[in-house]
């Protein structure tokens, strides 16, 4: 019973169409949990069920042990959330917006409001109307709003959407800090794998409303898995290089793509490979691990599903 969030066999049907099927996962205190899926996968729909904005067709969602359906008030107390965009009252100041949401939780604690304005670095504009804020500032105000009542679970739908790299980096740093220092459980959705890899301890991948896999980045041993490695030896020499490498590594999968050679190789064997290629007389322009795009990863994951 230590999980903060438990999603138990949740289904969601809208007008006969299954939007979410058999979704099951849980989030523990102190971890940043990613919720990854392409557009239309059902991330927002799931989050809306978690916060009680949308009814659950079957199954249940427990927040700190309380069902969001049966004991809404107790469950929602533990949640701070931004669903979709960080919408605030544009005609009110940042501070008044926070006062507004503080009142919704009970007593207004001015100290807490000041503390959060400082945390998200908005204290210098607290008397300014939100209308004048940039998206990043609104996003940060949204986070402050979600943290006001010291929730145990923070739910953010695409928190980095529309932010510049600096903004993304800041949000990432906040979330990690909150999880590590305050033991907060954070659930973030995104459709960018790279973001999930940087920000999350674990992440679930969903597609078409179904859970495809849950990846745990804290588990070591990923190094022994063959990863795609791209080597650029210049277009003219590509054919020859493929030949030479194939001879040396007959067991490995080797492809030609984008005028580069791609080899699936374990990380520890990479230095030897590169040395070999250079000693064989090729010029090495570039060699890097191929960061898979999300689509590739999905294809990989879905094909695994089908074959097993």
């Amino acid at each position: 019973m230590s999980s903060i969030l438990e999603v138990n066999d949740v289904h969601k049907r809208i007008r006969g169409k299954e939007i979410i099927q058999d979704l099951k996962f849980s989030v523990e205190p102190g971890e940043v949990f990613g919720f990854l899926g392409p557009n239309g996968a059902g991330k927002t729909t799931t989050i809306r069920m978690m916060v009680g904005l949308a009814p659950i067709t079957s199954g249940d969602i427990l927040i700190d042990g309380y069902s969001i359906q049966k004991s809404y008030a107790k469950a929602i107390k533990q949640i701070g959330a931004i669903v979709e965009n960080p919408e605030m009252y544009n005609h009110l100041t940042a501070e008044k917006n926070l006062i507004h949401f503080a009142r919704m939780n009970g007593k207004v604690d001015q100290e807490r409001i000041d503390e959060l304005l400082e945390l998200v670095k908005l204290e210098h504009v607290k008397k300014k109307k939100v209308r004048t804020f940039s998206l990043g500032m609104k996003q940060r105000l949204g986070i402050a709003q979600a943290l006001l009542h010291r929730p145990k679970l923070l739910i953010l739908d695409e928190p980095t959407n529309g932010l510049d790299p600096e903004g993304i980096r800041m949000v990432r740093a906040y979330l990690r800090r909150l999880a590590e220092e305050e033991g907060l459980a954070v659930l973030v959705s995104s459709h960018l794998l790279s973001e999930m890899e940087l920000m999350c301890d674990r992440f679930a991948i969903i597609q078409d409303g179904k859970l495809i896999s849950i990846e745990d980045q804290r588990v070591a041993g990923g190094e022994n898995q063959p990863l795609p490695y791209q080597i650029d030896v210049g277009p003219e020499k590509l054919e020859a290089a493929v030949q030479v490498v194939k001879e040396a590594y007959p067991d490995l999968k080797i492809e030609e793509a984008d005028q580069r050679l791609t080899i699936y190789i374990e990380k520890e064997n990479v230095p030897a490979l590169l040395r070999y290629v250079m000693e064989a007389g090729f010029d090495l322009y570039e060699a890097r691990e191929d960061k898979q795009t999300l689509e590739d990863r999905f294809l990989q994951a879905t094909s695994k599903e089908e074959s097993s």
Partner: protein
Amino acid sequence: MIRLIQNEWMKLFWRISTWVMAAILLVGVIGVLIYSITNQPSAEQLPSEAQWKAQLEQENAEYQQALEESGSSAEFYEQRIAENEYRIQNDIPPQQATGENVWSFMSTNTALLDLLSIFVIIIAATIISSEFKSGTIKLLLVRPPSRIKILFSKYLTVLLYALGMLAFLFGVSFILGALFFGFGESSAELIYTDGEVEQRPQVLALAIDYLTGSVNFVMLATLAFAISAIFRSEAMAIAISVLLYVVGAGVTSTLAMAYDWPKFLLFANTNLNQYFTSGGPPVESMTLGFSVIVLIVYWLIFMGFAVWMFKKREISVTG
């Protein structure tokens, strides 16, 4: 609940449109003031007692003649004649003979209740739909207070706003009226029912005017509120409510001439003033108690629908 109302009030207070509405109302009162001042006869122009009595007698002679010629509008002339005679017998000068005072000025300003009603309808129609439009409804509904509480805090805020605007209209009219016209000689309003004439102090008549006018716009505001909670469209809520406000009473009274059932229509009952003044209700069999019950039933229907839909609906704000 109080905190929720505080919130709604804060959001309303910082909206420019709220103040624009108050300003327009103020301009309205000042307009009436300027009109009243420029049309006010000076003291020496006011007729003496003998003069206004002679005038009323002359009027009655004309009415008498018109009464004999007209068939259908006989009642109108009968009423005028009875009222004039009552004034002559009881020494109650008509408005033209006493000049303007603060009460008559405030009474003229009840015309601005129409404007106020439209403002209240607009607020009622937008207080929910604006949250949907801005997407803030999601933040509002993912906090511990139940949806019903949120709905009612908004409704009560609309009523508070209406009360505030009414107090503003009342207060400004009173202050300006007292300042420019003084308290003067308080005259009385006459009520004609079934051939009997009664008099009512002007202040009481004024209070009834404002009160019954309030019932009218509270019902319409409730309707607008319900439409906007159900359909989330402020345009629809405003259009339907304002349209009903403007034509509802007219259509109802036209129907009431031919049938009996219009007495169950909302607009046959919103104007409670009809029980306190000469006109009488559109359908004979109606009583004040009947109207109050009909209004309560309508109110329950409007709010019931609003609560039901607002509770049940899935909140999706896309785009």
